[in-house]
């Protein structure tokens, strides 16, 4: 059981290598679609050096942030990132964010599996009781993926996002540990 905590059938969660992996993440940021799907900030290409600095700045509070690369099992290639942050230990909640960098790696179930791994990690290793995720109303694939994993849309921040000359809602989704357990039990008969 313990050995498979971070390992799925297709992907596993690993560390982030500030050298090679920063090069890969830098390539992703050159596609505005990437930023529009996953990030709040304006699209902005970042060099590997800027990526390294960003991670250094974010990575200070050790117990409040758990950051992983998502890698394909067959060739160890990094295809995405996933982070648990904003952790509040007394109330047992955290925020989850997940990206799949290259459009060609989307739509294969990698993100769904990585999400399942992270949920298992959050609820059984960190013993959190609640996770929150933010997404945009136009990211239908992301919303579906979160709902499939047991998340509910809890808040709709009307017109909080301005992109492509149009305003969009920002959605806040939440999963309690029970939601996740019910989902997992539903998948495994008995």
């Amino acid at each position, binding site marked *: 059981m313990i050995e498979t905590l971070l390992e799925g059938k297709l992907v596993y969660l690993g560390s982030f290598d500030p050298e090679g992996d920063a090069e890969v993440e830098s390539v992703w940021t050159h596609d505005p679609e990437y930023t529009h799907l996953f990030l709040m900030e304006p699209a902005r290409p970042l060099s590997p050096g800027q990526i390294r600095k960003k991670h250094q700045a974010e990575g200070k509070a050790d117990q409040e942030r758990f950051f992983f690369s998502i890698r394909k099992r067959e060739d160890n290639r990094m295809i995405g990132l996933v982070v648990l942050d904003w952790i509040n230990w007394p*109330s047992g909640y955290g925020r989850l964010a997940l990206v799949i960098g290259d459009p060609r790696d989307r739509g294969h179930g990698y993100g769904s599996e990585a999400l399942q791994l992270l949920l298992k990690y959050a609820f059984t290793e960190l013993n959190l009781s*609640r996770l*929150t995720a933010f997404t945009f109303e136009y990211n239908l694939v992301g919303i579906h993926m979160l709902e499939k994993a047991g998340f509910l849309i*809890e*808040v709709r921040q009307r017109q*909080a*996002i301005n992109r492509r000359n149009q305003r969009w809602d920002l959605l806040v989704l939440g999963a309690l540990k029970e939601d996740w357990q019910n989902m997992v039990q539903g998948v495994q008969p008995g």
Partner: protein
Amino acid sequence: MSASLLYGDHIRLAAINAERDAEAIARWTHDSEYWRLLTSEPLRPQSQQRIKDDLEKENPKNDAYVFGIHTITDDRLIGFVALDDILWSHGHGWLGIGIGDPSARGKGYGTDAMRVILRYAFEELNLYRVSLNVFEYNQRALSVYLKVGFTEEGRMRNAIHRDGRWWDIVFFGILKPEWEINRG
């Protein structure tokens, strides 16, 4: 004077002066009732020195506007109000407010300050939307937010554990066109 952007009927917004204000702000952090209305962080009293250091930090991201709330009659510091986590490209910011002085609560100062900071957000910063959230047990704040024109947009279930039970965090938002209508 009362027509000024930073003045309400009974309060005005002013810069927080680290030297002068740290003593009062440090005192508020020792008040568990205040703390529990304000933040989900565990209660942790702060020294004057710590408060002063925090206040003097730069805001290199240029994403926050923080003010002290002063009574007009005696210019006493009674609380703070802030717009932060501003995302300029979306015209979106988060509002936070605290009335630290217990004798100033329940007197309408918070409502007054909310009206001033919303005018500042929409007319000075030209934001399109202001968001805030509040713990479901903070009934006084919930009614103030509705009164000044916010709309409830949902609840994060079981987001905070206090006094042996779970509470929701309630989200509110107001858009510039709603504020304009509301202002009459």
